[in-house]
């Protein structure tokens, strides 16, 4: 009788083994990312007479030297520590957007005594930053992403973000000048408003030069997916696309693959010209050093978010040094350089408005009538869920 039932039966040992394996796997996901905490790089106050040191925590979602998003923030943090006396930096890299970041923030506050924390990745905000901000009302949290809502979120949370799409617009202008066929490509991670806005601004920049220019978008689905990014770059090269840019955490794979295929590139996040010496045109870079230094000075002057001395929402574009363009690469023609410089000047003076009607989505719906425009600081632009005409791709 017992033999008949043998077909499907789990022994106690097998059940235990399964449970162990599952829970251990859960742990892998949490601890397997190898966090390393670097001790403070900033100078401790030289003499005890100055104000007591302020501990500022920075948290990155990836490695600090990834040629990308995290490197841009880490360079800004280093500039803050170097320029503002009395600030001590604690940093942790490769912290996933899970409860792991809550643990990191907690230990920065409770063990290192951090009074200001910059969790830099988009996905840290809700619920992790919000929960910790409720719990530690005297610690200031600055989030890069622009998600803060007055009255909804705790008062010790602030958000700052750059209108890097202005730099993408200029990169689009340069790219269209260099691409005879007007075929551009964009390797994107996820269809969130910031990414869509970069794609759209890049395309609008290109179409201001060549009205027939198109941007082919390929989504990889994740912020760091090296194999898919390489595949996407290769398939674009196969389709005869002439300039490729991207919005992923680390553009290194895209830049190197495109260079190998003889395709021109436009960078993102940081300067990638060493990766693609032949084909690198320019790139949209973050410029966090000036912003972080300014914030650092305000912290040392005793200003806080809670008291209202520091605005809860900090925004800016090319004119406010939130972002910049990489130096033009060797391939860029003089004509393209002049057009790029003119676009920068136009944006900085406010004469050039990127989202200027008439504007349609790539599915034919109207965005703006002919006499309307949306300035860079228009909040409508931050809810973007469409591609403009000229983009080949779909957001859903």
């Amino acid at each position, binding site marked *: 009788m017992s033999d008949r039932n043998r077909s499907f039966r789990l022994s106690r040992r097998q059940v235990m083994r399964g449970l162990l394996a599952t829970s251990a796997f859960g742990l892998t996901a949490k601890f397997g*990312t*190898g966090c390393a905490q670097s001790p403070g790089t900033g100078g401790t106050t030289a003499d005890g007479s100055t104000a007591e040191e302020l501990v500022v925590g920075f948290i990155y979602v990836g490695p600090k030297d990834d040629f990308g998003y995290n490197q841009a923030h880490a360079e800004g943090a280093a500039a803050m520590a170097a320029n503002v006396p009395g600030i001590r930096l604690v940093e942790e890299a490769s912290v996933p957007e899970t409860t792991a970041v809550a643990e990191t923030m907690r230990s920065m506050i409770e063990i290192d005594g951090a009074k200001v924390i910059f969790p830099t990745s988009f996905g840290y905000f809700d619920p992790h930053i919000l929960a910790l901000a409720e719990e530690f009302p005297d610690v200031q949290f600055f989030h890069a992403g622009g998600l803060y809502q007055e009255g909804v979120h705790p008062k010790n949370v602030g958000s700052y973000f750059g209108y890097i799409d202005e730099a993408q617009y200029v990169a689009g202008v340069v790219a269209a000048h260099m691409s005879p*066929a007007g075929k551009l490509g964009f390797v994107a991670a996820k269809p969130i408003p910031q990414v869509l806005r970069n794609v759209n601004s890049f395309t609008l920049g290109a179409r201001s030069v060549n009205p027939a220019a198109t941007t082919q978008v390929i989504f*990889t689905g994740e912020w760091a997916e090296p194999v898919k990014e390489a595949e996407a770059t290769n*398939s674009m090269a*196969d389709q005869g696309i002439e300039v490729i840019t991207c919005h992923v955490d680390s553009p290194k794979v895209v830049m*190197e693959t495109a260079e190998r295929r003889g395709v021109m590139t436009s960078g993102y996040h940081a300067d990638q010209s060493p990766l693609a010496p032949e084909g690198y045109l320019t790139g949209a870079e973050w410029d966090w050093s000036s912003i972080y230094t300014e914030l650092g000075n305000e912290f040392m002057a005793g200003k806080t978010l809670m008291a209202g001395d520091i605005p809860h929402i900090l925004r800016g574009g090319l004119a406010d040094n939130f972002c910049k363009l990489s130096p033009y690469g060797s391939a860029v023609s003089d004509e393209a350089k002049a057009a790029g410089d003119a676009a920068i000047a136009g944006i900085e003076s406010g004469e050039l408005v990127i989202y200027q009607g008439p504007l349609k989505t790539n599915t034919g719906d109207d965005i703006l009538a002919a006499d309307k425009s949306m300035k860079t600081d228009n909040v409508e632009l931050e809810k973007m869920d469409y591609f403009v005409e000229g983009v080949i791709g779909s957001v859903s």
Partner: protein
Amino acid sequence: MATEALGWWGVPLGILAGTLRGSVPFLLVSLGECLTEKSGKINLGLEGTLLFGAMSAYAISYLSSGIVGPTLAPWLGVLAAGVAGMVLGAIHGWLSQQPRVNDVAVGIAMIIFGGGLANFFGKPFIQPQAPQLPTIPIGGWSDLAPVQSALQISPLFLLGVAIVPLMSWFFKSTRWGLYVRAVGDSPDAALAMGISIFWVRMASIVAGSFLAGVGGASLSLFYPGVWTERISSGQGLMAVALVIFARWQPWQCLWASLLFGGAQALGPAFQSVGIDSYYYLFNAAPYILTLLIMIITCSPQRTLAGAPGALGKDS
């Protein structure tokens, strides 16, 4: 920039190219795991081995290029990756054979250990560029640049393909192959034959980890050709699952790896020709494929055909 648009031909070409490029780590890891599992032990830690191999290869290639030149350096990197894999394999082999130690649990610990070690030592190598392995162009007959670029075969791919018949022959026709199978199927019989179960398993695990390490080298020195902490993105674990539905047959490991490599290219290739809906679905293709094949081939009525008898048993 005289590249012509390929249009729809880009899809099959992309998948073909993706197959040739992306299948190398799957192939090497699954062959290594095949050998390991034939001896009756599972090594889930190959995900960690893959990462550690990728890091070692990149680091050694970068550091030695100044001394031995950029042509030899990547090969030294490959060797280093294999040796690094063997070290991790030896740890797994020893630990998992201790009394009342579960090999699955040790494997998971080794994923964390290998990955953590790779990230720890790999920090300084994220930014620099290491010399890459050369590729063998076999697309010279075509005038189209995309075709030429798609048909760049990595020597590691050829190595993997060459190992397939060798391993098949090894299991079928050699005394050592018989030892491995005996230990894996019936340790008692193997013991009665006078074979050391410990050393046969140890050798199988170490050799399998060597292959997985070399698979890691193909990630960092061939395609996509960088070292980052997320370079493996679960490929090591997928390769372990792949062995199960390859039925522990080296030849089927080859076909399954090619399938997985090609499936990775599906999403980007379709989007590049304008099929942009459901890209999450296309991107998930390899995982869906795994699930489907698992569902089709698994049955509670019988054990999997071809499974080594002692696999997953404490002995």
